[in-house]
């Protein structure tokens, strides 16, 4: 079983590698940061597979921390694109 889970993790690594291309190409910064987010989700999935493969549920905590913090860089980026650098893109919506 763990052989399968490791191969699954390897497959995920492949999809992450595809995501690399978008981080590299952009073209916009939003593209780059969004695809970095994708790598984060893939990383979370990998921790789960590795937890099962190694029979160590403490590894899930790593996934938990990654999932909690993966969004932070993107939030910081979104804030930086607002007019004064401290706002929110939705602020002026009606």
């Amino acid at each position, binding site marked *: *079983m763990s052989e*399968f*889970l490791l191969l699954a993790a390897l497959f995920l690594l492949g999809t992450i590698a595809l995501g690399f291309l*978008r981080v590299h190409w952009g073209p916009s910064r939003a593209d780059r940061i969004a695809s970095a987010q994708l790598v984060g*989700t893939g990383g979370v999935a990998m921790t789960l597979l590795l*937890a099962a493969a190694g029979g160590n549920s403490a590894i899930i905590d790593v996934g938990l921390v990654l999932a909690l913090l993966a969004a932070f860089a993107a939030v910081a980026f979104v804030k930086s*694109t607002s007019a004064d650098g401290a706002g929110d893109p939705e602020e002026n919506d009606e």
Partner: protein
Amino acid sequence: MSGFANVLTVILVSVGLVFFLAGSVGLLRFPDLHSRLHALTKADNLGLGLIALGVAFQIGEPYAIVKLALVWLLAVLAAASVAQLIARSALDRLPAEGQADRQA
């Protein structure tokens, strides 16, 4: 682990992987940021959910299963919020700055 659980795990994880692959391909092939964001949030989070479910069948401890659920919940929450915010902020800057971003 029973054989049945193993079969379920293999099926769930495999389908999850397909979604991840679809997400990545979408991220590469879709023409603009907004459709790419769709690919990212929908496919990946579905994939993650399926993988978490598959993994749950391998892990006996109940509290670990709670953690798995929490991981998925957090990932969905984060991806949905971030996708919305990025999409919204890109809207403000299109088309002018979307082009300006396109530097070497």
